Structures are given as C-alpha cells and as structure tokens.
C-alpha cells in the first residue's frame, strides 16, 4: 500500500493520520469520564498504527510511472476480503441473536451479550460492514473498467476504504458498550456520524474525479446506480443524524427532531437506506457483473435507464409506509403507500431485465454456480419488491406490521438479493483481482450456493409463518369482544419458528465461511505466469540406458 503512494501522497497520509491521532487524543482527554474516551483511544491507536506503517515505508522507492497504464485494484482486493470478514461478524452476530430469541437465557447476565446490544452489531455488521465494503470494492472496479480510466490517485481510495472500516469498528464497539442514538440503522453517535460524512464526501469525489478523466464518453448505467447510492446515502445520513451532543466530552447527543417529525425523518432515512444502500448500489453491481458473467449484454439498456429514474424518483416518497396507523398525517401515509405500489414497476423492470438477459444462457446458469448466485438474486429481488409493495398497502400492513413477517421480508431481500448478488460478484472478481487462473474450488462454490439457498428458504418461510400467526393471534377476538390470545400465547406459538430461523441463519453463515476458505485458498494458489519452481524440464531418467 505505502509503495503505491507518491512522495506527496505519503506526506499527505502522514498529515491525515497525525490529525486522526490528535482527534483521537482530544476525544480521549475530553471524554475521559465517558465512553467517548474509549473510542478516543481506539481512534488514536488506529491513527498511530497507520502513522508508523507510513513512516516505515516512507523511504521506499516511488511507484514507477508504468503504474498509470494499469488500473488500481489494490483497494478492491482488500475490500473483498473485508467484505467476507464483516460478513462473518455480522452473520455470526445474527445467528447469535436469533438463538437468543429462542433461548433467552443465553445472555448469561452479561450486559454486552444482551439482545439490545448485539442486534445492531448484526444489522450494522451485515448492512454496513458486509454490504458497504462490497459496494466500495466493486464500485472501484466497475468505475475504472467502464470509464477506461485509472482511479485519480492512490491515497483517496485507501482513505475511503480504511476510514469506512474505522467507522464500522467504532459503530460496532459502541453498540457493545451501550452507545446508541436509538435510530434504526443510524445507531452510531454524533462523532462517528461526522467521520462518516468526511469519508463519504471523499468517496463521491473519487467518483467525480474518475468520471472527469474518463476515456469512454458514455457513462455506463451501473455507475449511475453507484452514484445515486453514494449521493443519496450522504443526504439521508446527514439529515437523519442532525443532533446536538451534550458536550464535546460526551458520546450522548439529542436529535434535532422530536415526535412524529423524528419518526418520519427516521423512516425517510430507513426506507431509503434500503432503497439506495441495499438496492441502488447492488443494482449497479448487477448491471455490470451479471451481463459480464453471462457473456451477454443487458436485455434492454433503455429499460435499465427508465428503472433507474423510476427508483430514484419514487423511493424517496415511500418511507411513510413504515408509519401506517400512527400520528403521522393520514395523507402522508397514503402518499407513501401509493408510491410504494407504483415502485413495483421500476423494480420489476430491473428484475425482469436481469432474467431476460439470462434468457438464452440458462445452460450457463445450470453449469456455473457463480452465475446462478446472480440469477437467484434477480429472482429474490423480484419476489421481495413485490412483497414490499404489497406490505405497504395499509390494510395488509395492519396484519404484517410489528410481526415477524417484516423480518421475513427484510431477509428475503438481504439474504436472497443483496448477499446473493454480492457473492456472485465476489466469486467472479476474486480470480481476476488476485491474478489467479480460477477459483480454488468450484465444488465449494456449489456447496456455498446450496447452503445459502437452503438457509434463505428456511429463514424466510419460518418468518412468514411466524409473522402471519402472530398477526392473526393479535387480532382474534372472542364473542365478548376481548382478545382471544395473550401476548405470551403468541410468543409460545412463535418458538418453533425461532429455532428454525436460527438454523436457517446458521446455514447461511456456514456458506459465508465456505466462501472465505475458498477465497483464501484461491489467493494461496500460484499466480498466473508465476515461475514454476520445478521448471519446465524433462524429468531425470531413473536409470540410464546401459547402466
């Protein structure tokens, strides 16, 4: 990494890391009587580690000018590995909290092992750790290949990748210590939020600067999706996290919003996090890697553009469907419901576009587990978006809201769509990025595929059943007009499904572990064109003629 930096970049890196150390020390001192201090020391340690790495490599020769004739893929390689590591952390935490719901005693009276603290480690771990690293890693790859231009410099992609992971570590460790601002998917406190804004602005700047240097005049549609993801996430993140800290020495802050405005802002953020983090970004991934792997151009490029604008116009308005039957004005609920239903059009246009691209290449889908991951992702994307539009209808929502049906819906999207497209892209990227001839074991990719599919189906069916049962039990009245079931009755009814859900999650986690093993073994294979230590020489004859 340091060897890729020019002298000027090494100096800039030292200044940035020095600043990080100072910021960490300031937090550690100002927050010495607060949990903020712990994070301060962690940030200072991260900065110090980077600073020493930079000092040690400072005297290395500058990178040769020939590097400019190559794409810059080192951050993508590291990002792919971080994706898998966070996947295991996030999915492992997910499995654990699923088990906690079935067997609540497993908290063992330890505060940081409680459900409330571990659950955001799961959600942030999979969304931001796993999903975010996958998006950063693949976006750098797609951006360079479709603009035919190298990233503008070496330092900013590393700043984005490592800075983003620092944010993820601060977030996850904060949850375990009990730090949260209690906004779903936006739990990290004010100082982590400010840091993420800095990282995110640099990320968007990389995109703009590379596009400005592009050699290919047309901006391929995948880049539009990636840019929508970066830009909108920045807007959502800034607005929803507007807060006033108690003091500069305190981790605690209070939101600028209150009451129903707070709820609306939160779900405007929350739903668009699904729309632009978990949908637009991964659609960008799909629109590049699926045609590439199938060896066929996207079925309709024009349909992909219409879907893009459809999704960006409409998702923004859909968030209020999270607040049906609340203090939110009725017309705002109806607005969210209407936009959610219409959203089915661009969503199915994308899912259909992907499947129609595969039409004629089904033999490849059958033979190639990597392409099958992507095909399955498109199918689950279609299923989940249909389900989402359906659940946003007020009457349906009256049954599904606050039940496990919602959890089932989210995981059909997260496991079936987001993770499947990520694994498809990851498996097709790893051999080329690490300059290996092929993936270590195609059989293990097959195994992973079936583990992931089985895990997803077990999970989703368990939650659908559980959710509908829960919803019906909560609305069943007897002839005297009183509720037939107590809350505990519904909890008992859900217990078998909770065990099934934990099993589904475990299968999915085992699949991810298989992927990590396969990727590590791929990296350990000899590189293409590497010198063969045996040499391409005839074997020594065991016995000379005439001996």
């Amino acid at each position: 990494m340091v060897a890729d930096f020019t002298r000027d970049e090494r100096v800039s890196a030292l200044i940035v890391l020095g600043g990080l150390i100072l910021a960490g020390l300031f937090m550690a001192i100002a927050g010495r009587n607060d949990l903020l201090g712990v994070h301060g020391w962690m940030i200072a340690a991260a900065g110090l580690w980077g600073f020493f790495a930079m000092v040690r490599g400072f005297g290395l020769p500058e990178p040769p000018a020939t590097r400019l004739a190559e794409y810059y893929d080192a951050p993508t390689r590291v990002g792919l590995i971080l994706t898998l590591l966070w996947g295991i952390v996030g999915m492992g935490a997910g499995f654990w909290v699923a088990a906690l719901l079935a067997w609540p005693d497993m908290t063992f009276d330890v505060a940081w092992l409680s459900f409330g603290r571990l659950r955001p480690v799961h959600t942030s771990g999979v969304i931001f750790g796993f999903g975010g690293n996958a998006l950063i890693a693949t976006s750098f790859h797609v951006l360079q290949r479709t603009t035919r231009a190298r990233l503008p410099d070496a330092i900013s992609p590393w700043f984005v990748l490592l800075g983003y992971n620092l944010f993820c570590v601060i977030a996850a460790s904060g949850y375990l210590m009990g730090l949260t601002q209690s906004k779903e998917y936006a739990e990290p406190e004010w100082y982590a939020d400010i840091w993420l804004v800095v990282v995110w602005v640099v990320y968007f700047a990389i995109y703009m600067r590379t596009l400005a240097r592009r050699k290919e005049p047309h901006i391929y549609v995948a880049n539009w999706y990636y840019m929508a993801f970066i830009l909108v996430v920045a807007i959502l993140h800034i607005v929803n996290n507007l807060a006033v800290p108690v003091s500069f020495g305190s981790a605690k802050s209070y939101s600028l919003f209150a009451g129903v405005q707070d709820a609306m802002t939160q779900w405007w953020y929350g739903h668009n996090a699904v729309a632009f983090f978990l949908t637009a970004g991964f659609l960008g991934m799909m629109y590049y890697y699926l045609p590439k792997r199938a060896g066929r151009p996207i079925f309709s490029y024009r349909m992909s553009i219409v879907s893009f604008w459809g999704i960006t116009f409409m998702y923004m308005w859909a968030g209020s469907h999270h607040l049906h039957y609340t203090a939110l004005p009725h017309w705002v609920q109806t607005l969210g419901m209407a936009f959610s239903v219409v959203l089915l059009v661009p969503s199915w246009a994308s899912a259909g576009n992907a499947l129609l691209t595969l039409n004629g290449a089904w033999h490849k889908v059958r033979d190639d587990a990597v392409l099958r991951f992507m095909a399955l992702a498109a199918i689950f994307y279609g299923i989940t978006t249909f389900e989402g539009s359906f659940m946003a209808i007020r009457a349906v929502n009256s049954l599904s809201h606050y039940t496990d049906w919602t959890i089932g819906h989210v995981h059909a999207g997260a496991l079936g769509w987001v993770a499947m497209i990520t694994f498809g892209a990851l498996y097709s990227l790893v051999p080329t990025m690490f300059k290996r001839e092929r993936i270590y074991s195609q059989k293990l990719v097959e195994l992973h595929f079936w583990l992931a599919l089985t895990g997803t189906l077990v999970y989703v069916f368990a939650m659908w059943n559980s959710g509908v049962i829960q919803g019906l039990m909560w609305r069943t009245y007897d002839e005297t007009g009183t509720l037939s079931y107590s809350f505990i009755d519904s909890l008992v009814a859900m217990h078998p499904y909770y065990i099934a859900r934990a099993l589904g999650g475990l299968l999915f986690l085992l699949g991810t572990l298989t992927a990590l093993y396969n990727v590590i073994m791929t990296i350990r294979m000899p590189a293409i064109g590497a010198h063969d230590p045996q040499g391409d020489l005839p074997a020594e004859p065991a016995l000379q003629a005439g001996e």
Partner: protein
Amino acid sequence: MPFDHETIVGFAKSFGLFYLVALSVICLAWTYWPTNKKGFEEAAKMPVLEEEDRPWH
C-alpha cells in the same frame, strides 16, 4: 406565506405533482428518443467486450 402544515401540503400537492410528472416525461423522452437508440446499444456491450484490462490512453 406562513410555513405551516397547510402550506407544505399545498406545495407538495401542486408543485410536487407537476415536478414529478415533468421529470418523468423528460426521462422517458430522452430514453426512447430514436437517435439515442444506437448509443445505448453500444453502451450495453461495455461489460462483455473482451479486450485488454487496462486504461485507455
């Protein structure tokens, strides 16, 4: 004009409606404009082109 609930609702229901309709019309017209067809078809081939994996100069 007071910045209250009624004003915001009025704005959203009038300007918001025409704004989204206009954006949709512009987007559809641009996408399906006959002269743009060829360029889009070329662009669609971008991921599947087999060529050297390095930046253009």
